[in-house]
């Protein structure tokens, strides 16, 4: 594997922006929903606060790494998610950082204001939350889309925009679901609101992957390189689709079912195992295709695939440890 610092930092920037963008977008949607569901007003406010904390954490991390990258290092190569190669020159990456500077400054001011209200004036934060999330989502959408900027707008530029933007709805939303699940584990009234919202986030993830597919059509067939990375990405994308179809959709039903009294539940407790496997496959798969985007691996497909499987087992073990600890704190 050819590891270098600029690639790693750009991966972290993409990851932080994706999570911040997802929390801003879904935070905005939740605040809109809260306006129509006054019965669960308190629950919505608590979930919005959780979203705001996730947003604040990922935004601050992004700002740190963006400052580091824009001032000291930003020479890197980029690959499409599906292993279809297209190399932006360093000049385009540099142009992206330059164009982004003004948006990052505005974004950072809003982040500071948001954190201030979240800590010192929660009532005002909730009053402004909807507008705050909406503006921040727009800013992140711009920043993440023009990370690579060509001198003229063409199909390749549109590819870069869609290819970067979709991470908000895919990688960011997948991570957000996991954090929301863990943060609301102890509170049934929060679970009721959050779990009923998961099918909408799932729709966002499906659409996000669709955007990536659409972006690939813009650079075919010239950019198709049949490397082990291409085959790994394609296999992982297929697994994401099959996992999403066969497991994730049922997981949403299972989660809502788990809130009902034991005697009327449709799903057996053993389904929880499937739920944890599905979650592990999902998170590792998205992290894998995002990493493949930024790094170059000089190994065979078999080695790459076995590493991917190993990480799924590792993630499953981590889920199990977290789950046992959370259950232990409840009893």
């Amino acid at each position, binding site marked *: 594997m050819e590891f270098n610092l600029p690639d790693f930092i750009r991966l972290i920037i993409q990851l932080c922006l994706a999570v911040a963008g997802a929390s801003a977008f879904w935070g905005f949607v939740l605040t809109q929903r809260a306006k129509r569901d006054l019965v669960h007003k308190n629950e919505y406010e608590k979930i919005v606060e959780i979203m705001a904390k996730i947003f604040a954490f990922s935004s601050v991390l992004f700002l740190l790494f963006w400052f580091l990258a824009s001032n000291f290092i930003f020479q890197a190569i980029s690959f499409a998610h599906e292993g279809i190669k297209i190399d932006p020159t360093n000049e385009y990456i540099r142009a992206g950082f330059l164009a982004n500077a003004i948006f990052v400054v505005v974004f950072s001011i809003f982040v500071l204001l948001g954190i201030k209200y979240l800590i010192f004036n929660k009532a005002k934060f909730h009053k402004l939350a909807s507008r705050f999330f909406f503006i921040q989502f727009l800013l992140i959408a711009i920043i993440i889309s023009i990370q690579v900027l060509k001198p003229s707008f063409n199909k390749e530029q549109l590819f870069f925009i869609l290819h970067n933007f979709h991470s908000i709805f895919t990688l960011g939303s997948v991570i957000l679901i996991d954090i929301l699940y863990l943060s609301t584990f102890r509170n049934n009234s929060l679970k009721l609101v959050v779990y009923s919202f998961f099918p909408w986030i799932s729709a966002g993830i499906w659409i996000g992957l669709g955007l990536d*597919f659409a972006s690939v*059509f813009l650079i075919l067939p010239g950019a198709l390189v049949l490397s082990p990375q291409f085959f790994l990405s394609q296999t992982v994308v297929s697994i994401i689709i099959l996992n999403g179809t*066969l497991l994730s959709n049922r997981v949403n039903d299972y989660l809502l079912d788990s809130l009902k009294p034991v005697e009327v539940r449709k799903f057996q407790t053993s389904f929880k195992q499937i739920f944890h496997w599905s979650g592990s496959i999902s998170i590792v798969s998205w992290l894998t295709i995002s990493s493949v985007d930024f790094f170059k691996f000089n190994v065979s497909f078999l080695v790459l695939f076995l590493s991917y499987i190993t990480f799924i087992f590792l993630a499953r073990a981590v889920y199990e440890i977290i789950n046992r600890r959370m259950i232990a704190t409840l009893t």
Partner: protein
Amino acid sequence: MIMKILGFKLKISEVFFLFSGIAMLVSLPWISGLGFNLWLLAKVAYFMGIIFFVANLISKNKHGV
């Protein structure tokens, strides 16, 4: 709309997604030849899956998000 395939009850969006995922995997060994067309077809099926998935979600929640 629910379809029964090999004893499994599947929504129409799930049928498209399943086809898409399997076709993408199957097309890989032949991607440089005929498999490429199957690969493209898998992508089209995926978009059909999204349309039905979102339509189903909206019809279940007529009041919107």
